[in-house]
């Protein structure tokens, strides 16, 4: 019991540390497109919860198969779903209003 408690306590402290790191990293002056990298400590937190609190490494192999399948299909969903918006080039539409504004602007 003492060993199990020490392990869980260590995980809890690690989670708080990673949470603080994630919070602090949100104040870094990163470009907008790089700001999702702030999630990296969060990903480590998720792994820590899965390994320590959810004991994904214990039990029958089918448990790890289900967990891996969930991660795999999530990856497929996000990769295929975001492929279009992240690779699309948006061209600005020349509207009549903009044209008029250009014409009416002082020389």
């Amino acid at each position, binding site marked *: *019991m003492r060993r*199990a*408690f020490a392990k*869980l*306590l260590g*995980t*809890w402290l690690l*989670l*708080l540390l990673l*949470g603080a790191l*994630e*919070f602090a*990293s*949100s*104040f*870094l*002056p*990163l470009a*907008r497109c790089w*700001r*999702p990298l*702030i*999630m990296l400590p*969060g990903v480590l*937190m*998720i792994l820590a*919860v*899965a390994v*320590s*609190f*959810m004991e994904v490494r214990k*039990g*029958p192999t*089918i*448990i790890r198969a*289900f*967990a891996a*399948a*969930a*991660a795999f*299909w*999530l990856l497929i*969903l*996000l990769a295929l*779903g*975001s492929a279009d*918006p*992240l690779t699309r080039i948006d061209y600005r539409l020349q509207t009549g209003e903009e044209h008029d504004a250009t014409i009416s602007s002082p020389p």
Partner: protein
Amino acid sequence: MASTAVAHDFQYSSPAHQAQTAIAGMWLFLATEVLLFGGLILCWIFSRHANQPGFDAGARETTLWIGTLNTALLVTSSFAYSVGLAFIRAGNARAMIWCLRAAVLLGMVFLALKFGLEWHRDFAEHLFPAAPQFKLHGAGQGGARLFFVFYFISTALHGVHMMVGIALVFWIIVRARRGAFSPLYHTPVQAVGLYWSFVDIVWLTLYPLIYLIGRG
């Protein structure tokens, strides 16, 4: 409780086989939940990419301290539940009940902060996306409204999961008080613990998406 410990349904070869099947079933259910929340994350990626300035302006209107405190509360709640599981494995049902009470109390504080305080403030400040006098104006207003659509749907969906989790933990506490669990039989405690930690994982994903990435 010895009779409960050795009993198993006819289709299983042993109590251990039945327990493993129940836990595997819970993992399979959680895998479907990952895909449910995956769609939500995809919406975030799509909406933010197309409306970055407005979306980030919306994120800056969220209450950072409540989100951060709630993250610590949920992590601590998961920790308390896991310690409870360790206690029942060691044969101490009384200590487990106290740990589960702590876990459920932290979960209820989370809900009170989220819906009693934060949502109340959001509505008062006209941050509801369908509000006629939406707080944010200008070219990015559409993106900001989209952010708050994501914010309200994702936090509501997570809140519903929290409420289900709290009901389940209460059910475990009631059964534990009747002496239903022992070191040999505690499969429901373990299965509910998986769900409770999963709800924690969902929040660990939502926290940076809602509160952190749009700031700066």
